[in-house]
């Protein structure tokens, strides 16, 4: 039976490709199911945790005194509130806290640590079974963040040592805190028993309040926040709502899920390209046979059906395998989720649907590609050699013209121009591989370069000194400023004061923005548009703030200044990824009570060691935080850089891996396709080495094209893509800083090496006597 023979031969012939297609589809289904599973787990766990913890809808942090009577009265009269509570938190300095028995304090930790009692009504702190943790005397509940970081277990010791106080506690539970779980939230709550709480309170005067509300209609949180502000209630600190908790909790795992799904899509594209290539190659090889079948009256549908059956089977098997493999993968990816958020009962249906989606897309693509069958005419098929290699020498330059090139190099290059469509696939894969490598590499270079500070809303200075909110903040600010003014080793410094201002929106609602005043000129910032405000009539906004407010350069924004509403002109817009991307700068008189923190930017005299100075100021003015520029960037971007490094490594492995695999596959098919041509050349005296050089030239030429295009697109489109992604974080116009040696020399060399070696290995099959010519 002729159909059966075609199928059998086709399977034997395309074993390599089918294996590759199978692998790509499997991987794609694996990642798609895994990503979907991750999303389902993430949101399932999040819902379960929020439910169990009875998360408040709105939380207002506050430092300073509270008029509880007034707050109670307001809350009682506000119909939006279902329940509310005020929790006191004791702020503990990091250097007083020792976790486990390492004997190292939390001195250097970026986390703000506080001690609290368990709540009775809502905003509960849960143990690892999602039950509210009720500590016994002498017990402490430690946030999961620290438990993960230091591998702490229930039963490990925790010591508090400050002034006279020395308190020994035992870990009674690891705590899930729906508000403050994620590492990007720099506040962490420890739970202790009433007894210990009272002791601590006597010794440590620093407290903070958490005023939390549960609303009757949770979706109206914005309205509620506006009403709260309008009422002039305590609000020295951040205001947060449930959506934000959700976002913060979902952020890092959400990004992982997005990347995984994106990767899956990418692999699917490659799988489909490979499929297209194999299908076209098989059609071409069977062209005559198909023509004969048509000529003897067999309908094209029948012929097509055997191909469809084959690819259907492969796609089905691969998707199923991918789904099965995704089960352990999801477990692995969701490990953090399970630890941080708990394990929900997940819907198993979604990952299955995701795998089915991959299957459907692959099959539909096959059907579209196979439509080509209809176009084969019996006569044309019987008369010609194939559909790919039409005509003869047309289009390419005559060999005679290609002076100065070796014959083999010339033949290799000519081949690229002659069979452009054929090599297009390979070129596209190279392009793709280069793109997915160069973009992260460029971005990595950019984010690790010192000039990245221009995306962080600050000018470039050698040192930064931060004074955080505390009772004595004003006093310490003055002392520090005097010290800086007198220090001969300081060449220049600027004092910057960040405070809260009330801003009116067009609809009459107001909101709080944080605004930096002070010496804005000394360490100038790179502005997207405009420049530093020059008068008290002007304001500069961060990109996200401007976008949120819908204002452009020259527009005005109304601000409450000295108790009076004042229209300020937007004189500059800058990029800032810190503090949620929402900051502002101006030359406004500030209210001492609403100051959030003070910062000094400092440059040192030539020859002064930054590290020494930093250490000196840190010890002289503790607890002021002194960081050099690198340290500041590292603390703010450290995790991002770490993740990016992972992404870059994965991209390099993936890009090179795909290039190598597809090159090998492609050449194998090409050799089969060109068997006639190759044996002719061998018979007239070309050695295997000569022929190998031709294909190597071709592969390298196609690679060069892919590299060129990939590089160009990375630097243009890639930059836009990264800017787009980061515009959500506050940096809308990122310019890549390029490490030319790495990006334009090492990387191409790596690619060229990989491709050359692959060609070499694949072509070693040629190493046998001619034979075929007969």
């Amino acid at each position, binding site marked *: 039976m002729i159909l059966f023979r075609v199928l059998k031969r086709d399977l034997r012939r395309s074993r390599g490709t089918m294996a590759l297609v199978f692998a790509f589809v499997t991987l794609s289904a694996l990642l798609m199911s895994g990503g979907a599973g991750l999303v389902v787990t993430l949101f399932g766990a999040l819902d379960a945790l929020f439910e169990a913890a009875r998360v408040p809808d709105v939380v207002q942090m506050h430092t300073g005194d509270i008029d509880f009577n007034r707050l109670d009265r307001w809350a009682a009269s506000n119909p939006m509130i279902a329940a509310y509570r005020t929790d006191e938190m004791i702020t503990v300095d990091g250097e007083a806290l020792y976790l486990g028995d390492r004997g190292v304090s939390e001195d250097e930790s970026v986390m703000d640590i506080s001690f609290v009692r368990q709540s009775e009504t809502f905003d509960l702190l849960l143990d690892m079974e999602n039950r509210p943790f009720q500590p016994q005397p002498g017990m402490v509940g430690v946030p999961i963040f620290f438990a993960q970081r230091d591998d702490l277990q229930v039963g490990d010791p925790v010591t508090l040592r400050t002034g006279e106080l020395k308190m020994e506690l035992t870990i009674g539970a690891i705590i899930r805190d729906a508000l403050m779980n994620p590492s990007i939230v720099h506040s962490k709550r420890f739970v202790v028993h009433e007894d210990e709480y009272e002791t601590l309170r006597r010794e440590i005067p620093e407290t903070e309040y958490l005023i939390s509300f549960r609303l009757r209609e949770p979706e109206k949180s914005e309205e509620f926040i506006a009403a709260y502000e309008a009422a002039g209630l305590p609000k020295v600190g951040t205001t947060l709502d449930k959506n934000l908790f959700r976002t913060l909790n979902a952020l890092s795992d959400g990004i992982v899920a997005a990347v995984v799904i994106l990767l899956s899509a990418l692999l699917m594209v490659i799988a489909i390209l490979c499929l297209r290539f194999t299908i076209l190659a098989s059609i071409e090889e069977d062209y005559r046979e198909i023509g004969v079948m048509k000529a003897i009256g067999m309908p094209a549908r029948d012929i097509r059906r055997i191909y469809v059956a084959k690819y259907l089977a492969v796609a089905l098997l691969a998707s199923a395998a991918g789904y099965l493999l995704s089960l352990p993968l999801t477990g692995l990816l969701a490990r953090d989720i399970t630890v941080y958020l708990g394990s929900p009962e997940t819907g198993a249906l979604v990952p299955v649907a995701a795998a089915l989606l991959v299957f459907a897309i692959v099959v539909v693509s096959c059907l579209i590609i196979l439509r080509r069958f209809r176009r084969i005419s019996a006569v044309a098929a019987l008369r010609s050699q194939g559909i790919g290699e039409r005509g003869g020498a*047309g289009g390419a330059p005559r060999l005679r013209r290609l002076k100065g090139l070796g014959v083999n190099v010339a033949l290799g290059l000519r081949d690229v121009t002659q069979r452009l469509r054929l090599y297009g696939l390979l070129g596209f894969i190279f392009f793709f591989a280069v793109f997915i490598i160069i973009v992260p590499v460029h971005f990595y270079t950019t984010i690790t370069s010192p000039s990245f500070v221009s995306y962080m809303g600050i000018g470039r200075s050698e040192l930064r000194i931060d004074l955080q909110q505390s009772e004595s903040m004003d006093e310490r600010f003055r002392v520090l400023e005097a010290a800086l003014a007198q220090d001969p080793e300081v060449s220049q410094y600027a004092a910057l004061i960040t405070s809260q201002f009330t801003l009116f929106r067009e609809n009459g609602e107001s909101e709080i923005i944080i605004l930096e005043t002070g010496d804005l000129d000394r360490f100038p910032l790179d502005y997207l548009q405009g420049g530093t405000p020059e008068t008290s009539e002007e304001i500069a906004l961060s990109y996200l703030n401007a976008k949120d407010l819908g204002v452009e350069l020259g527009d005005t924004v109304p601000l409450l200044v000295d108790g009076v509403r004042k229209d300020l002109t937007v004189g500059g817009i800058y990029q800032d990824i810190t503090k949620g991307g929402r900051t502002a700068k101006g030359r406004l008189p500030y209210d001492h009570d609403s100051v959030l923190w003070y910062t000094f930017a400092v440059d040192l005299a030539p020859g002064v060691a930054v590290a020494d100075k930093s250490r000196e100021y840190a010890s002289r003015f503790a607890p002021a935080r002194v960081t050099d520029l690198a340290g500041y960037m590292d603390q703010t971007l450290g995790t991002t850089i770490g993740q990016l490094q992972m992404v870059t490594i994965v991209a390099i492995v993936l890009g090179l891996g795909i290039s190598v695999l597809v090159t090998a596959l492609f050449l194998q098919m090409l050799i089969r396709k060109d068997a006639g041509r190759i044996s002719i050349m061998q*018979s007239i005296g070309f050695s295997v080495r*000569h022929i190998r050089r031709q294909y190597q030239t071709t592969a390298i030429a196609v690679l060069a094209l892919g590299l060129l295009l990939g590089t160009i697109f990375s630097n243009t489109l890639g930059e836009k893509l990264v800017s787009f992604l980061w515009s959500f974080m506050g940096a809308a116009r990122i310019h890549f800083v390029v490490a030319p040696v790495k990006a334009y020399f090492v990387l191409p060399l790596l690619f060229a090496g990989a491709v050359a070696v692959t060609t070499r290995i694949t072509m070693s099959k040629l190493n046998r006597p001619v034979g075929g010519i007969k």
Partner: protein
Amino acid sequence: MNALLKSTNLNKSYRIDANNEQQVLFDVNVQVHRGEFISVMGPSGSGKSTLLYNLCGMDRRSSGSVQFKDHTLETLSEPQLARVRLDEMGFVFQQIHLLRNLSIMDNVLLPGYLSKRCPRRLIEERAEELLNRTGIASLADRSITQASGGQLQRVGICRALINEPDIIFGDEPTGALNSKASAEIMELLTEVNRTGTTILLVTHDVRVASRTHRVLLMKDGRLVSEKALGPVADGSEEVTEREAVLANWLQENEV
């Protein structure tokens, strides 16, 4: 006089599958002298093509030895064999085997360029001269899909001659041509032979064989007989006479 090409007890077996081998050549001893024009005849499947490909080093013999000039072919490596074929041998085939992606001129130039023994200028001049001599100069820049079989076989001959080889091997070069085109190709080959190039060709055609100096007869993988005819003198009468002699001889050998 030393032979240009000489095989000694040449044996060739093909592996059919894991357990079976088929022997195709049995102890073949051939001597080809410089300037000779030799044809090999024999029934289909008798091993003529196999002999030819073993003599030129495209195929590897199973045992025995092939001596070409001062090369012992079985001792040469693949690149060395390729070099010998490129510089010192020429080939013409029934299916011609030109490269489809090159123009006619480029097909002829290719082995010349690859060889690099002469500057490109000289190769190009020689190619033009060859195309002129074979009467296809006007087709030089055409694609090979735009020429007739007889014309393409001339291209094949030009390509075989471009590096001025010592010997040309032909596997039924006239097999696919009609008698007129076939006669023209034989004319051309005879002329090439007269200028000093040795030729060894496989043929089924008595008329083709009758124009060669010596005819070898193969049967079942063995060289069973040979007939010396000597060079052709000009004149058609003699040609018919040679054909008759040859036909007779073949009959005697039950072919």
